[in-house]
């Protein structure tokens, strides 16, 4: 006989008719015998039937007409934007803007040491990242002294690629040797103001964490964390929130590149394990049906089954993270 706790997990699915025959029998048997679980079943059934009975409300009058106006306006704006982009005026303006951006970038390089956006909340990883950052900073200081002393702006501009890559290259080499530096996903974004976008994304991640606190009681301190080096940010986010995070980025940024790197570390998801489990159970059943069943083979399969079960339990128990390397460029 299963524990009441386990039965209660199954009760809503029992009400919906989403259980297997075996499970139905187990739940049915249990609620007949156990008064408390029967009350739980009655309440669940009542609640689900009430929810199912919540009726649709009608679309207000004028909804489509109102939308039509907005869409016409929207499409007008789009056409104007396209016409503007194609115009000579825009070409001149964008050239001027590009020159300005290069100028600001060069200035920014010279002032690099003044920028330090480390997020204080990033906890244990911070020490590791600080070390990596120092590696980056040392390197960039070397570069700055090399060029800065010569004071030649043209030379700096020629080496613009060097500035753009400063964030990643030394960092990657620093990351290789350490466990904390595992990157599961590389995300490249384009935005006008990388610092501001970083703040926005950091804020979003923090809010997500807060919103999800009610789901997971333990690990409250162990929130997704951010740390910044140059225009590349290290960020980790709980796996159960990652898909939503990716979706958030996709819906907010037009120019985005998401490159999954190492998936072997971040484990198969529960669905995949469940699939494997089903497979093995099928095999065991088939062997059992045969008359000359091989006990060793069954034992081997049972061991595999136990392993998968413990993996699932582990996955369910601990919060898994996806490590992200986020680069925001102009």
């Amino acid at each position, binding site marked *: 006989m299963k524990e009441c706790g386990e039965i209660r997990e199954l009760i809503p699915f029992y009400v919906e008719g989403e259980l297997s025959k075996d499970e139905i029998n187990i739940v049915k048997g249990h609620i007949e015998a156990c008064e408390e679980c029967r009350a739980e079943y009655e309440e669940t059934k009542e609640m689900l039937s009430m929810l199912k009975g919540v009726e649709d409300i009608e679309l*207000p009058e004028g909804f489509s007409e109102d939308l039509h106006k*907005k*869409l016409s306006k929207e499409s007008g704006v789009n056409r104007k934007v396209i016409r503007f982009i194609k115009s000579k005026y825009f070409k001149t303006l964008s050239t001027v803007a590009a020159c300005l951006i290069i100028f600001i970038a060069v200035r920014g390089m010279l002032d690099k040491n003044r920028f330090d956006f480390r997020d204080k909340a990033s906890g244990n990883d911070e020490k590791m990242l600080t070390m990596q950052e120092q590696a980056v900073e040392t390197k960039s200081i070397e570069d700055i002294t090399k060029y800065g002393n010569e004071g030649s702006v043209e030379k700096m501009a020629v080496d613009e690629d060097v500035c753009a890559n400063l964030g990643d290259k030394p960092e990657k080499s620093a990351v290789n040797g350490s466990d904390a530096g595992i990157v599961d996903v590389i995300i490249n974004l384009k935005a006008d103001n990388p610092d501001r976008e970083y703040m926005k994304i950091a804020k979003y991640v923090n809010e997500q964490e807060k919103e999800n606190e009610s789901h997971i009681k333990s690990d409250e301190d162990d929130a997704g964390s951010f740390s910044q080096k140059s225009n590349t940010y290290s960020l980790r986010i709980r796996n159960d929130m990652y898909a939503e995070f990716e979706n958030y980025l996709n*819906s907010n940024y037009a120019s985005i590149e998401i490159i999954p790197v190492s998936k072997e570390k971040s484990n198969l998801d529960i669905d995949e394990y469940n699939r494997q489990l089903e497979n093995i159970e099928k095999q065991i059943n088939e062997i059992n049906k045969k008359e000359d069943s091989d006990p060793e083979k069954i034992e081997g399969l049972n061991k595999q089954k136990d392993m998968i079960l413990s993996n699932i339990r582990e996955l369910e128990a601990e919060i898994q993270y996806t490590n992200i390397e986020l680069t925001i460029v102009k």
Partner: protein
Amino acid sequence: MNDLEQKLLKNAQKGDIEAFEKLIEKHQKMVYNIAFRMMGNREDAYDMSQEVFIRVFNAIGRFKGNAAFSTWIYRITKNVCLDEHRKRKNKNTLSIDKELEGEQGSIQRQLRDDSPSPEEIFEKKAMKKTIQEAINNLPDQHKIVIILRDIKGFSYQEIAKIIECPEGTVKSRINRARKALKDILYGNRELLNTEYVK
């Protein structure tokens, strides 16, 4: 998606508003109703639904058909509503006491008709009023799965696609959501029993 819809989609992707409108016609009510349950009042539901279709219109060129068109629209609906909640949380304008609408009579009809006692009638009336408020007091992540599964009857697979989570995650999330909703609803009932029914 049938041939006509494919054609409408192609035209809509070229910026044809009328084709777009035909394409979304049958999804309007669903979007409005999901938004209504998410936002808790008609006014916000209206604004959110309009915003959803404007976003869909602007992004339709990027719709590749990897997911069903409806799934894609409902995903955007969810995003628009969650974005709005996030914005309001930042501005601190979302009041818990804000008056919430529920349509009268729709829930009571669904209750079992086994000639209830006066106490039961009172209880059920109280619950009818409470259920909409209860939904509105759930965290967003719970609210959306309850709306999609228990009110709108989407399959777990469809929900997984809409909220972009594995099916296993959807199931465990909905279990937590139902527990939370039941606590709100039946916690209240116990209170009502002790306070009024004696």
